[in-house]
Protein backbone atom coordinates (compact mmCIF):
# COMPACT_ATOMS: atom_id res chain seq x y z
CA UNK A 1 0.00 0.00 0.00
CA UNK A 2 1.46 3.33 -1.02
CA UNK A 3 0.17 6.53 0.57
CA UNK A 4 0.70 9.49 -1.67
CA UNK A 5 -0.37 12.27 0.60
CA UNK A 6 0.13 12.15 4.31
CA UNK A 7 -2.57 14.06 6.16
CA UNK A 8 -4.91 13.84 3.20
CA UNK A 9 -7.93 13.80 5.47
CA UNK A 10 -8.83 17.14 6.99
CA UNK A 11 -10.49 15.39 9.93
CA UNK A 12 -7.03 14.57 11.21
CA UNK A 13 -6.34 18.16 12.06
CA UNK A 14 -7.60 17.69 15.59
CA UNK A 15 -8.15 20.89 17.51
CA UNK A 16 -8.53 23.24 14.56
CA UNK A 17 -11.05 20.97 12.91
CA UNK A 18 -12.92 20.49 16.15
CA UNK A 19 -13.04 24.23 16.68
CA UNK A 20 -14.20 24.98 13.16
CA UNK A 21 -16.83 22.27 13.38
CA UNK A 22 -18.18 23.83 16.53
CA UNK A 23 -18.30 27.17 14.80
CA UNK A 24 -20.29 25.58 12.00
CA UNK A 25 -22.61 23.95 14.51
CA UNK A 26 -23.07 27.26 16.29
CA UNK A 27 -23.78 29.10 13.05
CA UNK A 28 -26.26 26.49 11.94
CA UNK A 29 -28.15 26.54 15.19
CA UNK A 30 -31.42 28.42 15.11
CA UNK A 31 -31.99 30.95 17.86
CA UNK A 32 -28.47 31.13 19.21
CA UNK A 33 -27.95 32.91 22.54
CA UNK A 34 -28.10 31.36 25.97
CA UNK A 35 -29.11 27.83 25.10
CA UNK A 36 -26.48 27.51 22.37
CA UNK A 37 -23.60 28.67 24.49
CA UNK A 38 -24.80 26.38 27.25
CA UNK A 39 -24.57 23.44 24.86
CA UNK A 40 -21.16 24.54 23.66
CA UNK A 41 -19.88 24.98 27.21
CA UNK A 42 -21.19 21.56 28.13
CA UNK A 43 -19.49 19.98 25.12
CA UNK A 44 -16.23 21.76 25.93
CA UNK A 45 -16.01 20.07 29.30
CA UNK A 46 -15.84 16.68 27.59
CA UNK A 47 -12.40 15.75 26.38
CA UNK A 48 -11.16 12.93 24.23
CA UNK A 49 -8.38 10.73 25.55
CA UNK A 50 -6.34 12.34 22.76
CA UNK A 51 -6.28 15.60 24.73
CA UNK A 52 -4.63 13.86 27.70
CA UNK A 53 -1.75 12.38 25.69
CA UNK A 54 1.71 13.84 25.35
CA UNK A 55 2.48 15.49 21.97
CA UNK A 56 4.72 12.63 20.80
CA UNK A 57 1.84 10.16 21.12
CA UNK A 58 -0.63 12.62 19.57
CA UNK A 59 1.67 12.91 16.56
CA UNK A 60 1.34 9.17 15.90
CA UNK A 61 -2.43 9.51 15.58
CA UNK A 62 -2.49 12.77 13.65
CA UNK A 63 -0.60 11.42 10.66
CA UNK A 64 -1.79 8.33 8.77
CA UNK A 65 1.72 7.70 7.48
CA UNK A 66 2.88 7.23 11.09
CA UNK A 67 -0.22 5.71 12.67
CA UNK A 68 0.44 1.97 13.11
CA UNK A 69 -3.33 1.30 13.26
CA UNK A 70 -3.40 2.04 9.53
CA UNK A 71 -1.79 -1.39 9.04
CA UNK A 72 -4.97 -2.94 10.48
CA UNK A 73 -7.09 -0.64 8.31
CA UNK A 74 -5.28 -2.04 5.25
CA UNK A 75 -6.14 -5.54 6.47
CA UNK A 76 -9.79 -4.59 6.78
CA UNK A 77 -9.80 -2.93 3.38
CA UNK A 78 -8.42 -6.08 1.75
CA UNK A 79 -10.90 -8.25 3.62
CA UNK A 80 -13.82 -6.04 2.55
CA UNK A 81 -13.21 -7.03 -1.08
CA UNK A 82 -12.43 -10.72 -0.51
CA UNK A 83 -15.07 -13.43 -0.91
CA UNK A 84 -15.92 -15.31 2.27
CA UNK A 85 -17.72 -18.48 3.35
CA UNK A 86 -20.00 -20.77 1.39
CA UNK A 87 -21.76 -17.80 -0.21
CA UNK A 88 -18.47 -16.78 -1.84
CA UNK A 89 -19.68 -13.20 -1.31
CA UNK A 90 -17.49 -10.34 -0.18
CA UNK A 91 -18.66 -7.48 2.02
CA UNK A 92 -18.39 -5.28 -1.08
CA UNK A 93 -20.74 -7.55 -3.07
CA UNK A 94 -23.63 -6.40 -0.86
CA UNK A 95 -22.43 -3.07 0.52
CA UNK A 96 -20.41 -1.69 -2.43
CA UNK A 97 -17.73 0.87 -1.80
CA UNK A 98 -17.28 1.17 1.96
CA UNK A 99 -16.06 4.74 1.63
CA UNK A 100 -19.61 5.66 0.57
CA UNK A 101 -21.86 2.98 2.06
CA UNK A 102 -20.21 2.80 5.48
CA UNK A 103 -19.92 6.53 6.07
CA UNK A 104 -21.32 7.23 9.53
CA UNK A 105 -22.21 3.61 10.26
CA UNK A 106 -19.68 3.01 13.04
CA UNK A 107 -20.88 6.23 14.70
CA UNK A 108 -24.26 4.57 15.36
CA UNK A 109 -23.12 1.45 17.24
CA UNK A 110 -24.09 -0.23 19.55
CA UNK A 111 -27.48 -0.55 17.89
CA UNK A 112 -30.51 -2.74 18.57
CA UNK A 113 -30.49 -5.88 16.46
CA UNK A 114 -33.96 -7.10 15.60
CA UNK A 115 -32.44 -10.41 14.51
CA UNK A 116 -30.75 -10.94 17.87
CA UNK A 117 -33.44 -9.12 19.87
CA UNK A 118 -30.72 -7.29 21.82
CA UNK A 119 -28.23 -4.45 21.42
CA UNK A 120 -25.06 -5.42 19.55
CA UNK A 121 -21.78 -3.66 18.86
CA UNK A 122 -20.07 -3.22 15.49
CA UNK A 123 -17.96 -6.38 15.81
CA UNK A 124 -21.08 -8.42 16.53
CA UNK A 125 -22.80 -6.88 13.50
CA UNK A 126 -19.82 -7.84 11.32
CA UNK A 127 -20.10 -11.40 12.61
CA UNK A 128 -23.87 -11.43 11.98
CA UNK A 129 -23.14 -10.53 8.36
CA UNK A 130 -20.59 -13.31 8.22
CA UNK A 131 -22.83 -16.04 9.62
CA UNK A 132 -26.13 -14.96 8.02
CA UNK A 133 -25.12 -13.47 4.68
CA UNK A 134 -21.71 -14.89 3.86
CA UNK A 135 -22.30 -18.28 5.50
CA UNK A 136 -18.84 -17.99 7.02
CA UNK A 137 -17.87 -18.82 10.59
CA UNK A 138 -18.00 -15.94 13.07
CA UNK A 139 -14.57 -14.49 13.84
CA UNK A 140 -13.37 -14.91 17.44
CA UNK A 141 -13.26 -12.03 19.93
CA UNK A 142 -10.24 -9.73 19.30
CA UNK A 143 -9.40 -11.60 16.10
CA UNK A 144 -6.95 -9.49 14.09
CA UNK A 145 -9.05 -9.68 10.91
CA UNK A 146 -12.18 -8.70 12.82
CA UNK A 147 -10.32 -5.74 14.33
CA UNK A 148 -9.08 -4.84 10.85
CA UNK A 149 -12.62 -4.76 9.44
CA UNK A 150 -13.79 -2.76 12.45
CA UNK A 151 -10.93 -0.29 12.04
CA UNK A 152 -11.64 0.07 8.32
CA UNK A 153 -15.33 0.73 8.98
CA UNK A 154 -14.63 3.10 11.87
CA UNK A 155 -12.26 5.07 9.63
CA UNK A 156 -15.24 5.78 7.34
CA UNK A 157 -16.81 7.71 10.24
CA UNK A 158 -13.69 9.64 11.17
CA UNK A 159 -14.46 13.26 11.87
CA UNK A 160 -18.18 12.56 12.33
CA UNK A 161 -20.00 12.99 15.63
CA UNK A 162 -20.85 9.91 17.68
CA UNK A 163 -24.55 9.44 16.94
CA UNK A 164 -26.25 6.77 19.06
CA UNK A 165 -29.56 5.68 17.48
CA UNK A 166 -32.75 7.26 18.75
CA UNK A 167 -34.25 3.90 19.62
CA UNK A 168 -36.16 3.24 22.82
CA UNK A 169 -35.23 -0.43 22.54
CA UNK A 170 -31.71 0.67 23.58
CA UNK A 171 -32.89 2.40 26.75
CA UNK A 172 -32.73 -0.66 28.98
CA UNK A 173 -29.13 -1.33 27.94
CA UNK A 174 -28.16 2.32 28.47
CA UNK A 175 -29.68 2.35 31.94
CA UNK A 176 -27.97 -0.94 32.76
CA UNK A 177 -24.67 0.41 31.39
CA UNK A 178 -24.93 3.53 33.51
CA UNK A 179 -25.58 1.44 36.63
CA UNK A 180 -22.57 -0.74 35.81
CA UNK A 181 -20.44 2.37 35.21
CA UNK A 182 -21.28 3.64 38.68
CA UNK A 183 -21.12 0.32 40.52
CA UNK A 184 -18.05 -0.34 42.65
CA UNK A 185 -16.38 -3.60 41.71
CA UNK A 186 -13.37 -5.75 42.51
CA UNK A 187 -11.00 -6.06 45.45
CA UNK A 188 -9.94 -2.45 44.98
CA UNK A 189 -13.63 -1.50 45.14
CA UNK A 190 -13.71 1.19 42.47
CA UNK A 191 -16.34 2.04 39.90
CA UNK A 192 -15.58 3.41 36.42
CA UNK A 193 -17.00 6.72 37.67
CA UNK A 194 -14.64 6.86 40.67
CA UNK A 195 -11.66 7.26 38.33
CA UNK A 196 -13.00 8.52 35.02
CA UNK A 197 -15.36 11.20 36.36
CA UNK A 198 -14.27 11.96 39.92
CA UNK A 199 -10.50 11.75 39.28
CA UNK A 200 -10.33 12.47 35.53
CA UNK A 201 -7.39 14.66 34.59
CA UNK A 202 -5.29 13.49 37.53
CA UNK A 203 -2.45 11.01 37.23
CA UNK A 204 -2.51 7.28 37.82
CA UNK A 205 1.05 6.01 37.67
CA UNK A 206 2.57 7.70 34.61
CA UNK A 207 -0.67 8.33 32.74
CA UNK A 208 -3.37 10.95 33.04
CA UNK A 209 -6.79 9.46 33.77
CA UNK A 210 -8.98 10.27 30.76
CA UNK A 211 -12.74 10.85 30.83
CA UNK A 212 -13.50 7.46 29.24
CA UNK A 213 -15.08 8.63 26.01
CA UNK A 214 -14.89 5.92 23.32
CA UNK A 215 -13.95 8.29 20.48
CA UNK A 216 -11.25 6.27 18.78
CA UNK A 217 -12.00 2.54 18.83
CA UNK A 218 -10.62 0.23 17.76
CA UNK A 219 -7.41 1.78 19.09
CA UNK A 220 -3.71 1.10 18.66
CA UNK A 221 -2.61 0.99 22.28
CA UNK A 222 1.12 1.36 22.85
CA UNK A 223 0.72 -0.86 25.91
CA UNK A 224 -0.71 -3.64 23.69
CA UNK A 225 1.70 -3.02 20.81
CA UNK A 226 -1.31 -3.67 18.64
CA UNK A 227 -4.95 -2.85 17.92
CA UNK A 228 -7.75 -3.79 20.30
CA UNK A 229 -11.43 -3.19 20.92
CA UNK A 230 -13.31 -1.11 23.47
CA UNK A 231 -14.25 -4.33 25.25
CA UNK A 232 -10.58 -5.27 25.61
CA UNK A 233 -9.98 -1.84 27.12
CA UNK A 234 -12.91 -2.26 29.52
CA UNK A 235 -11.53 -5.65 30.50
CA UNK A 236 -8.18 -3.99 31.32
CA UNK A 237 -9.86 -1.60 33.73
CA UNK A 238 -11.83 -4.42 35.35
CA UNK A 239 -8.75 -6.56 35.95
CA UNK A 240 -7.00 -3.38 37.09
CA UNK A 241 -9.42 -3.03 40.00
CA UNK A 242 -9.15 -6.80 40.59
CA UNK A 243 -12.66 -7.59 39.43
CA UNK A 244 -13.74 -10.57 37.35
CA UNK A 245 -14.33 -9.02 33.91
CA UNK A 246 -17.66 -9.61 32.19
CA UNK A 247 -17.40 -12.09 29.34
CA UNK A 248 -16.44 -10.64 25.95
CA UNK A 249 -19.58 -9.88 23.95
CA UNK A 250 -21.76 -10.23 27.05
CA UNK A 251 -24.86 -8.11 27.58
CA UNK A 252 -23.03 -6.24 30.35
CA UNK A 253 -20.13 -5.30 28.06
CA UNK A 254 -22.48 -4.13 25.29
CA UNK A 255 -24.58 -2.24 27.86
CA UNK A 256 -21.45 -0.38 29.01
CA UNK A 257 -20.61 0.39 25.37
CA UNK A 258 -24.15 1.69 24.79
CA UNK A 259 -23.99 3.92 27.87
CA UNK A 260 -20.53 5.25 26.91
CA UNK A 261 -21.70 6.00 23.37
CA UNK A 262 -24.63 8.01 24.74
CA UNK A 263 -22.34 9.86 27.14
CA UNK A 264 -20.00 10.74 24.25
CA UNK A 265 -22.82 11.67 21.84
CA UNK A 266 -21.69 14.44 19.49
CA UNK A 267 -17.98 13.99 20.15
CA UNK A 268 -15.97 13.44 17.00
CA UNK A 269 -14.76 9.99 15.98
CA UNK A 270 -10.96 9.72 15.68
CA UNK A 271 -10.73 6.05 14.72
CA UNK A 272 -8.34 4.43 14.40
CA UNK A 273 -6.86 6.27 17.39
CA UNK A 274 -3.57 5.80 19.22
CA UNK A 275 -3.53 5.64 23.02
CA UNK A 276 -0.74 5.02 25.56
Amino acid at each position, binding site marked *: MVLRRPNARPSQCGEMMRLSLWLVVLLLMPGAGVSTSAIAADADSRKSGFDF*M*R*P*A*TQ*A*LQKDDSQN*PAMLWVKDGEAHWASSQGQSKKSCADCHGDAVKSMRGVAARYPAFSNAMKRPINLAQQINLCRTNQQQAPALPVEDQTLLGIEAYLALQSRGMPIAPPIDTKLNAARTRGEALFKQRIGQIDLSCKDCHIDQAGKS*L*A*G*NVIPQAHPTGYPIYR*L*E*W*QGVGSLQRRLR*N*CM*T*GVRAEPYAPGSEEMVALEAYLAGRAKGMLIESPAVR*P
Partner: protein
Amino acid sequence: MTMNATRRQFLAASTAITAGVLVRPATLLAQDDVLAALVKSYAGSATPREGRVKLNVAPLVDNGNSVPIEVLVDSPMTPANHVVGIAVFNEKNPQHDVALFVLGPNGGRARVATRIRLATTQKLVAVAKMNDGSCWTHTVEVIVTLAACIED
Protein backbone atom coordinates in the same frame (compact mmCIF):
# COMPACT_ATOMS: atom_id res chain seq x y z
CA MET B 1 1.27 -6.46 65.35
CA THR B 2 0.62 -3.33 63.36
CA MET B 3 3.35 -1.50 65.26
CA ASN B 4 5.77 -4.32 64.61
CA ALA B 5 5.00 -4.50 60.92
CA THR B 6 5.44 -0.75 60.58
CA ARG B 7 8.73 -0.84 62.43
CA ARG B 8 9.98 -3.72 60.32
CA GLN B 9 8.94 -1.95 57.13
CA PHE B 10 10.67 1.20 58.30
CA LEU B 11 13.86 -0.69 59.07
CA ALA B 12 13.77 -2.51 55.75
CA ALA B 13 13.10 0.71 53.89
CA SER B 14 15.85 2.65 55.62
CA THR B 15 18.33 -0.15 54.93
CA ALA B 16 17.33 -0.08 51.28
CA ILE B 17 17.70 3.69 51.11
CA THR B 18 21.15 3.55 52.70
CA ALA B 19 22.21 0.81 50.33
CA GLY B 20 20.84 2.86 47.43
CA VAL B 21 22.80 5.95 48.42
CA LEU B 22 25.99 3.97 48.79
CA VAL B 23 25.65 1.97 45.61
CA ARG B 24 24.19 4.55 43.26
CA PRO B 25 27.23 6.63 42.26
CA ALA B 26 29.17 3.48 41.42
CA THR B 27 26.29 2.19 39.28
CA LEU B 28 25.97 5.48 37.45
CA LEU B 29 29.64 5.51 36.65
CA ALA B 30 29.40 1.99 35.30
CA GLN B 31 26.44 2.96 33.09
CA ASP B 32 28.32 5.93 31.64
CA ASP B 33 31.12 3.54 30.79
CA VAL B 34 28.61 1.31 29.00
CA LEU B 35 27.55 4.06 26.59
CA ALA B 36 31.11 5.32 26.17
CA ALA B 37 32.32 1.84 25.28
CA LEU B 38 29.52 1.39 22.73
CA VAL B 39 30.26 4.74 21.12
CA LYS B 40 33.96 3.90 21.00
CA SER B 41 33.35 0.52 19.36
CA TYR B 42 31.23 2.19 16.66
CA ALA B 43 33.66 5.09 16.16
CA GLY B 44 36.61 2.77 15.58
CA SER B 45 39.85 4.75 15.32
CA ALA B 46 38.10 8.15 15.41
CA THR B 47 37.77 10.09 18.64
CA PRO B 48 34.06 10.72 19.17
CA ARG B 49 33.17 14.34 19.87
CA GLU B 50 29.94 15.95 21.04
CA GLY B 51 28.08 18.11 18.50
CA ARG B 52 26.82 18.20 14.90
CA VAL B 53 24.27 15.48 15.69
CA LYS B 54 20.95 16.00 17.43
CA LEU B 55 18.94 13.18 18.95
CA ASN B 56 15.37 14.40 19.32
CA VAL B 57 13.19 12.52 21.76
CA ALA B 58 10.54 13.72 24.18
CA PRO B 59 12.08 14.02 27.68
CA LEU B 60 9.03 12.33 29.20
CA VAL B 61 7.17 9.62 27.32
CA ASP B 62 3.68 8.10 27.69
CA ASN B 63 4.77 4.52 27.22
CA GLY B 64 8.18 2.89 26.79
CA ASN B 65 6.85 0.44 24.20
CA SER B 66 6.92 3.00 21.42
CA VAL B 67 9.07 6.09 21.77
CA PRO B 68 9.49 8.23 18.65
CA ILE B 69 13.10 9.32 18.03
CA GLU B 70 14.64 11.48 15.33
CA VAL B 71 18.34 11.86 14.54
CA LEU B 72 19.42 14.98 12.66
CA VAL B 73 22.99 15.57 11.55
CA ASP B 74 24.44 18.90 10.49
CA SER B 75 25.78 17.88 7.08
CA PRO B 76 25.39 19.19 3.48
CA MET B 77 24.97 15.55 2.33
CA THR B 78 27.03 15.98 -0.83
CA PRO B 79 29.31 13.29 -2.27
CA ALA B 80 32.24 15.30 -0.87
CA ASN B 81 30.79 15.78 2.60
CA HIS B 82 28.15 13.45 4.00
CA VAL B 83 27.06 11.18 6.81
CA VAL B 84 28.02 7.56 6.27
CA GLY B 85 26.18 6.01 9.17
CA ILE B 86 24.25 6.64 12.35
CA ALA B 87 24.12 4.36 15.40
CA VAL B 88 21.77 4.61 18.37
CA PHE B 89 22.55 2.89 21.68
CA ASN B 90 20.65 2.66 24.95
CA GLU B 91 21.93 2.37 28.47
CA LYS B 92 19.55 0.05 30.33
CA ASN B 93 17.57 -2.20 27.96
CA PRO B 94 18.53 -5.91 28.07
CA GLN B 95 20.50 -5.25 24.86
CA HIS B 96 22.30 -1.96 24.21
CA ASP B 97 21.94 -1.80 20.41
CA VAL B 98 18.90 0.07 19.12
CA ALA B 99 19.53 0.51 15.40
CA LEU B 100 22.26 1.19 12.84
CA PHE B 101 21.50 3.28 9.77
CA VAL B 102 23.53 3.55 6.58
CA LEU B 103 22.91 6.66 4.49
CA GLY B 104 23.86 7.11 0.85
CA PRO B 105 25.87 10.14 -0.33
CA ASN B 106 22.70 11.07 -2.25
CA GLY B 107 20.62 11.27 0.91
CA GLY B 108 19.90 14.96 0.54
CA ARG B 109 19.09 15.41 4.18
CA ALA B 110 20.72 13.66 7.13
CA ARG B 111 17.55 12.90 9.06
CA VAL B 112 16.34 9.51 10.23
CA ALA B 113 13.30 8.76 12.39
CA THR B 114 11.99 5.58 14.00
CA ARG B 115 10.21 4.34 17.14
CA ILE B 116 12.00 2.47 19.87
CA ARG B 117 11.46 0.60 23.14
CA LEU B 118 12.83 1.83 26.43
CA ALA B 119 12.60 -0.55 29.37
CA THR B 120 13.08 2.20 31.92
CA THR B 121 14.30 5.76 32.46
CA GLN B 122 17.75 5.92 30.91
CA LYS B 123 20.22 7.61 28.61
CA LEU B 124 20.32 7.25 24.86
CA VAL B 125 23.17 8.18 22.55
CA ALA B 126 23.22 8.82 18.81
CA VAL B 127 26.55 8.62 16.98
CA ALA B 128 27.02 9.97 13.45
CA LYS B 129 29.95 8.84 11.36
CA MET B 130 31.06 11.20 8.56
CA ASN B 131 32.81 10.29 5.31
CA ASP B 132 35.92 12.12 6.57
CA GLY B 133 36.09 9.56 9.37
CA SER B 134 35.04 11.90 12.18
CA CYS B 135 32.40 10.82 14.71
CA TRP B 136 29.89 13.02 16.52
CA THR B 137 27.61 12.21 19.42
CA HIS B 138 24.57 13.46 21.29
CA THR B 139 23.43 11.92 24.57
CA VAL B 140 19.97 12.49 26.04
CA GLU B 141 18.10 11.26 29.08
CA VAL B 142 14.55 9.99 28.72
CA ILE B 143 12.15 9.53 31.61
CA VAL B 144 9.89 6.54 31.07
CA THR B 145 6.83 6.51 33.28
CA LEU B 146 5.08 3.27 34.09
CA ALA B 147 1.64 2.82 32.61
CA ALA B 148 -1.37 2.15 34.79
CA CYS B 149 -4.05 -0.43 33.91
CA ILE B 150 -1.75 -2.76 32.03
CA GLU B 151 -3.05 -6.01 30.62
CA ASP B 152 -3.43 -8.85 33.08
